[in-house]
Structures are given as C-alpha cells and as structure tokens.
C-alpha cells in the first residue's frame, strides 16, 4: 500500500501564494484602521512564532518538550529587566536574552536528551517549573509574584533620526510579522537541510539514526537551541507588547501547553501546521473572550439566552480558555494526531489512491 509522495522542494504556486500573503499582511495596517484587528494579528504572529519554534524540536525531532515556557520566560524577563532597571533599549537587551536562552537550552538538552520519550517530557516540565519557582522567589531580580510592569519603550533611533515610536500597535505588528515570516522561512530551510533530515531520522527511529552516523544529542541540541532562540524572541515581544509579566503568565505550564497545542493542532512536522494552529487558536480565544461563541450558539438556536445554561455560558465561557484548550488537546490526540493539516493531507492521499486504483481497474 505504498503511496507516492510529492517530491521535496518548493513549487511555484505555494511560494507565490506565500509572497502574496506577506505583502497583504504588510499593507494591512494602512488599509485597516482598527487597533483591535492589529491586536488580534499581533497575538496571531506571536502564536505562529512560538508554535513554529517548538515545531523544530517537537515536530521534526519528535522530542516533545512541554517546558518551552522556560525560554519564553527568559526572553520576556531578560529584556524587561534590562530595560526597566538598566535602561537598556530592548533591541540591545534582546542580545543577552537570546544568548541566555540558547545557553540554557544547550545545558538542558545535554542533560535531558539522553532520556527517552515520556521521561524527556517530564524532565522538560520539571525544568520549566524550576525556572518559574526561581522567578517567583528571586524577588530582588524579578519582583516575584508581583511581576514586572514595563516603564516605557524608548523610540527607535538610527543615526539620530527617530524611525518609530512605540506608542501604537503598529511597530509591534511589523515586528511580529517580520519574526513570523523569518521563523517560517527558517522552517523551510530547516526541513530541507542536513539538520532537518537528521532530526527527522532521529524522530522516526533513534537507534537506526544513530547507527547511520548521527550523533544524537548533538543534533537534538542544535534543534533545541534554534527553537529556544525563537521562543525567547516571542517572549521578549510579548513582554514589550503587553507591558506586564509575572512568573505565571511568562513561565507557567499553561504557556508550555499552549505552545505544544498550537503546533499539534495544526499538524506537527509541517511548515504551515503551526500557522494553521495559531490561526485556529487565536480565533477560538477571541471567539470565547468576546462572547461571539455564546452569541453564535444563541443565534443558531441551540441555547436559549434566558435559560440557566444560556446565562451560565454568557457569564463563564469567556473564562473557559484553558478548559477549551484541554478539550482540544484531547480531541486532537484522540481523533487527529496528525493535526488539521495532517488530516487534510491524509484525506487527499486517500482520495488520490482511490482515484488511481479506480482508474487502473
């Protein structure tokens, strides 16, 4: 029952579509004058960056880290601390943040990558929890549970001229867009590179990969360090954009779970999977928060707004984020382990196989 696969490499249509999409997105702030829309897009870009970054080590490498909040938190905290207490502009502060994230990733990887499957998952969770507790208790540095409130972001000046001020959502939009495009391009490069091949071999069969000359921990670390780099970028952008971080929102388990969910819902080990996942999750989040879902249920007639259920939903569904995430994780694992994109691909493949079988008969 072998089925032919499309050859590797990019064909014209997807590339053209991608470029068109990016151009449209770049023009969006000029066409649409809604801070809310911009906010949604920034949230979307952040999710794309975080999901795609995880995808490198989790999707392609098969190493499911459920502790990526550690790198997100390092990005957020380092940049904000250096800005608030050191007066260091975030574009300079990003350097130490990324360096720290990469060093921590390399250390964590060297220690935990010898563990197989579920043990690695547990270790990654323990590492993130250790970071969170450190942030919670090192009050002199991080303000502990009170968190850090961003003072203000200085304007970006090049050669004495102000390029942009950070008083609207627009510069965050473009930063987010730029990073998101970058991480997707990196994924494209990654998939066809020696590192990408080796990671996938490790994912498919670690011992076979080892016997073919692949040093396991080295390559896993390369992927993890790259992944931590971009996750920390997302953390820094988040901290600057939202203006407030604390150990729970920046390093909590919920963050790690959301990162994993973004990647697996869309389809792990694919280039666009995290993008699809990000779109779905952000849409769902906003749908919940703005009561759109509840209104939808009412409009369709499933729920009576005056009933007990209706009132309950109206009051509470907007807070049901993590509950819905939990349901989504469960549903995805049970019915769609290859994610939305994977499921679509499988359906297409089945239809093609049926067609060719029918044609041959």
């Amino acid at each position: 029952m072998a089925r032919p696969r499309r050859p590797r490499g990019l064909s014209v249509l997807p590339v053209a579509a991608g470029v068109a999409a990016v151009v449209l997105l770049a023009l969006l702030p000029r066409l649409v004058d809604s801070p809310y829309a911009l906010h949604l897009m920034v949230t979307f870009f952040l999710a794309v960056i975080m999901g795609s970054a995880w995808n490198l080590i989790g999707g392609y490498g098969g190493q499911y880290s459920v502790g990526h909040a550690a790198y997100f938190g390092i990005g957020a905290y380092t940049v904000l601390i250096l800005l608030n207490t050191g007066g260091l502009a975030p574009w300079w502060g990003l350097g130490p943040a990324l360096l720290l994230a990469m060093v921590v990733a390399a250390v964590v990887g060297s220690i935990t990558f010898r563990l197989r499957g579920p043990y690695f998952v547990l270790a990654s969770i323990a590492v993130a929890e250790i970071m969170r507790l450190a942030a919670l208790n090192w009050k002199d540095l991080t303000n502990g549970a009170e968190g850090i409130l961003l003072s203000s972001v200085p304007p970006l000046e090049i050669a004495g001229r102000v390029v942009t001020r950070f008083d609207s959502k627009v510069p965050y939009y473009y930063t987010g867009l730029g990073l998101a495009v970058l991480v997707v391009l990196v994924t494209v490069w990654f998939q066809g590179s020696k590192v990408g091949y080796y990671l996938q071999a490790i994912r498919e069969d670690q011992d076979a990969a080892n016997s073919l000359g692949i040093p396991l921990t080295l390559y896993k670390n390369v992927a993890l360090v790259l992944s931590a780099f971009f996750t920390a970028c997302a953390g820094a952008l988040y901290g600057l954009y939202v203006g407030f971080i604390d150990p729970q929102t920046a390093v909590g388990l919920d963050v790690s779970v959301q990162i994993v969910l973004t990647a697996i819902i869309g389809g792990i080990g694919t280039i666009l999977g995290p993008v699809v996942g990000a779109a779905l999750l952000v849409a769902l989040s906003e749908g919940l928060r703005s009561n759109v879902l509840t209104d939808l249920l009412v409009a369709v007639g499933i729920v009576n707004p005056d009933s007990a259920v209706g009132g309950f939903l109206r009051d509470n569904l907007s807070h049901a984020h993590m509950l819905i995430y939990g349901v989504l994780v469960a549903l995805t694992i049970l019915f769609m382990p290859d994610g939305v994109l994977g499921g679509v691909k499988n359906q297409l493949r089945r239809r093609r196989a049926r067609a060719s079988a029918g044609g041959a008969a």
Partner: protein
Amino acid sequence: MSSAPGAILEMRSVSKFFGGLAANSDVSFSMTQGMILGLIGPNGAGKTTLFNCITGYYPPSRGEIRFKGERMNGLTPDQVCKRGMVRTWQKVRPLAKLSVLDNVVVGALVRTGSVPAAREIAREQLEVVKLGHKAAFLAGGLPIGERKKLEVARVLATKPDLLLLDEVMGGLNPAESEDIIQLILDIKKRGLTQMVIEHDMKAIMRISDRIVVLNSGEKLAEGAPQEVVSNPEVVTAYLGEAHV
C-alpha cells in the same frame, strides 16, 4: 588468537555478559578485506549480540575489537559508522514517514554536508538495489522485501568498508532471497567486506568465503564452508534446523 596482519576486522576474545548470562564468550576471529564471512548458529547463539558489540550499540564486557587496526571498544554507533562499519537490522527499521529516497539520503549525509550531493549518492544506491522506481514512495508503506533492500541501499550510501547484514533474507520468498544474494555478490565485487548472519544455509554456502559458527555464545567452529558444514559438532548444534 594471533592477530592477522592486514586484517580489516579482528575480534579478540570478545565476551558480553548480561548480569550472569554470557551472551558472547571468548569469541575470536578475523576478516580480511573483500571477504564474505558467514556467521551462523542456532537461535540465541549470540550472533546479533556480537553485531551489537561490534557496532557500538553496547561495549563488549571483555576482549577487544579492532577495525582497520584501530581499537573500537566503547565507541558510539555514530562513531563506528563514520569509521566505515555499518549494519542492517534483524527487524527492519525504515524511517517510516520519510520517502524511500530520503531514507537513503540520511545514510549518504554522513559523508557529505550537501543535501543535493547526498541525493545523487542516494539515487545511485537505489539503482544498485533496484528500488529507483520507488524513490518517492513512503518507506513505511513498502512490502517487507523492498524494506530490506531499502535498508541495504541506506547503509551502502554511508560508503562503508565493512557491512554487517543481520538476517537480511529473513521473511523473504525465494525470488526475493535470490535478489539479495545477487546484491551481496555485487557488493563483494565492489570491494566491500561483509559479515552475514543468516539462517538460510544454502545461501550461506553460496556466498561465504569463510564461516564462523556460534553456539551458546561461544565460537564452535570456523573454516571454509564445506569443512564447517561437515563438522559433526556443528551438525549436532543445529539438530533439527539443518537445511543442508
């Protein structure tokens, strides 16, 4: 137990213990370049354990393994592969979600950092095993005979000097086995050295220059195929399993 000069592989009193069990016990033999050594013995004799020790899956408990004159004890499998020794698996291990071509590319990448160059090597090796027409297929969907060929192509792509084949004919029909035998003989013509574990005695007799017989972890006999096969101890060890 003298070391043979110019030997490509030397096994010197290799033993492997698991707890109290001696899976390999004081096994010694050597191989010269270009030869095919058949490694036979009843089930549980320690053949795959020996392969695992040689390729670094775990180190031998005692004794020494020398490859091209260099001591190999304690090297990791990837280091062993880089030095020119590679193995196939008794239970095939395709990289299931990758294409047939990509499986072989992974093997080729140990010798080159360039993916396009690796693809070229991969295509060549697929032609050698006659799987070129399936290059775009998912490895996980192949039937068992083609999976075995794929595994051979994959290890050939690592440009090895010594190839260890673990029951590469296991589970194949006669036509498929014949393909593999031809493949092994072709590989020999290219100058590669091979150690072959096999239960199919006819095949072993055809291809081997020398045969080593293991039984209960120990080397029972060694010599030219005809000598070994007529050795009464060997026949006894195989009682009920002889295909000769």
